[in-house]
């Protein structure tokens, strides 16, 4: 082999060693490059994914808070405009469940499982425990005892069905007053066959004649609903309201179970009986009592201002020589207002506990009402 051939061989061998070296180096470099890109890209992707998830949770929470704040404004507005009804479209919130519960004088309402609740300690709110709907209804009715004390706020939904049994006259008046609410009167022939859930979220049966009891059968049409979505409210001749819930019958089927104790409705009756209507829409006796106690709390302050008004009226008639009859009529009647105030204060804590003090409150209110009518007949200034 000559020199040139040897050199050629050496060059080829050097080149192949060189190529091998670079091939290996290239392989490592490319691999490392891709690893680096994947790692860096993954980190950046995770970073943005974290921001997106965080923002989503924050947005959901923000939406829940805004819904509850808006509800608060709506309820305040509804509450101050007495004798008004309205509807609140909630189609965009059909997947959310609104909850309402009253305890210790405070109503808490919010969205279920969202951790957002609002507390209301002044406005008496009467509603089902849960509402899941595309349209909510509200109704503000003044509680007169005998003068206007506070507005009671009733909240329900288009998919909460109320079947009314008994007392056709009251039933018709109630349906006329409630207007858009999902109410239906059933005669004795129609009950229980015509009771069915249809597409309602919950059903309540209102028995005005105290015919249904715990031993009465639950309409078969309602057996397929959840137990907590079917209830019965029963009124007796003493204006006592009793609540029942559907439950499983150990021997099969469904039955009614008593919820809490009966509660006396403290009301002077008459047109637009707000306390009775509130009892119809209230979730349970405890919710009803809790909300009514807010009304009694307000009553003691309103009674005080009417006492001052009474004193002004008395001073006015005493200063007029022609008002002898009125002066005589107004003598020694301060006790009405003092009593009303003290009895309202007692009811604020003891209402529904069976101690009976609220019946005395009812009696005092009746006396004030009669007294006011007597003053009107004598052309004296009225108490209210």
């Amino acid at each position, binding site marked *: 082999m000559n020199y040139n051939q040897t050199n050629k061989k050496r060059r080829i061998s050097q080149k192949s060693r060189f190529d091998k070296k670079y091939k290996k180096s290239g392989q490592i470099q490319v691999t490392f490059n891709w690893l680096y890109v994947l790692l*860096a890209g993954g980190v950046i992707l995770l970073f943005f994914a974290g921001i997106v998830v965080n923002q989503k949770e924050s947005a959901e929470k923000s939406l829940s808070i805004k819904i509850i704040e808006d509800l608060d*404004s709506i309820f*305040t*507005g509804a509450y*101050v*405009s*007495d*004798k008004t009804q309205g509807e609140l479209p909630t189609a965009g919130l059909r997947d959310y469940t609104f909850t309402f519960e009253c305890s210790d004088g405070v109503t808490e309402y919010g969205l279920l499982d969202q951790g957002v609740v609002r507390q209301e*300690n*002044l406005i008496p709110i009467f509603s089902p425990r849960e509402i899941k709907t595309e349209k909510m209804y509200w109704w503000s009715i003044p509680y*007169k005892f*005998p*003068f*206007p*004390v*506070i*507005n009671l706020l009733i909240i329900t939904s288009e998919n909460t069905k109320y079947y009314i049994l008994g007392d056709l006259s009251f039933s018709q008046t109630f349906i006329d007053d409630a207007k858009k609410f999902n109410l239906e009167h059933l005669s004795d022939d129609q009950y229980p066959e015509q009771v069915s859930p249809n597409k309602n979220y919950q059903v309540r049966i209102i028995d005005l004649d105290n015919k249904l009891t715990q031993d009465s059968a639950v309409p078969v049409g309602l057996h397929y609903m959840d137990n907590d979505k079917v209830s019965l409210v029963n009124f007796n001749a003493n204006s006592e309201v009793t609540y029942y819930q559907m439950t499983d019958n150990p021997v099969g089927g469904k039955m009614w179970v008593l919820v809490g104790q009966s509660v006396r409705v403290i009301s002077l009756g*008459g047109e637009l009986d707000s306390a009775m209507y509130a009892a119809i829409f209230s979730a349970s006796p405890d919710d009803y009592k809790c909300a009514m106690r807010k009304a009694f*709390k*307000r009553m003691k*302050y*309103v009674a*005080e*201002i*009417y006492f*001052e*008004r009474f004193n*002004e*009226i008395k*001073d*006015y008639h005493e200063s007029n020589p022609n008002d002898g009859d009125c002066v005589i009529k107004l003598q020694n009647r301060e006790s009405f207002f003092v009593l009303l105030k003290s009895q309202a204060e007692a009811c604020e804590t003891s209402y529904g506990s069976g101690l009976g003090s609220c019946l005395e409150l009812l009696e005092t209110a009746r006396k004030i009402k009669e007294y*006011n009518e007597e003053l*009107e007949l004598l*052309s004296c*200034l*009225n108490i*209210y």
Partner: protein
Amino acid sequence: MSNSKINFKKGQVRITETISVLLIFFLIIVFAMIFYGNYQKTILEEKEHESFSDKAIRITTKLLSLPELACTKGDSDYESFCFDMLKLRHVNDLFKENLADYYYDLFSYSRVTVYQTYPFIDQNNPLSKLGVSDEGPWILYEKILCPEGCEWEENENKCIKVDPVVKTSCRPDKKSTYFVVSLRDETKGVPGRPEFKTGYIHVEVFK
């Protein structure tokens, strides 16, 4: 220069290039987050301002249908936008005595004053200046929130800076609304026809 040295330098340049790109990228992200944070802050401030205005309107709305003030007509509905003078004259005491228990929750930090506009007020009446005439103004409710570092001075009837040496007044941050009302007085006028005056309520809400 040998190939390896050249490649080494190329590699260095490439790595530096990659690091610079990433640095600028993250810098842009940081700027975007600062911008977003400032934007959110502005939104929150706007919302707070809106909520503050809303509060003044809500208190006014509550006042107009308050049983402690409203003109009643037996078993009929209230007279709208009407205050009963026989109640109004005593409502301040009621609110004051029961402020913590009830009325603070209703009116919060605010001041509610009722002014009479017609019949025209006799400006020379010394009782008006003392606030004890029957022509108002009537302060129905008052609970002032002084700004930070200030406190309410009862004697001066204003917010004073907490400074042992120099007493300077502070201006509370507030929002006002007004609403026209009629003032019914059954102890004036002729029997069966009470006297009606015109006035307005001034609601000041404090931040």
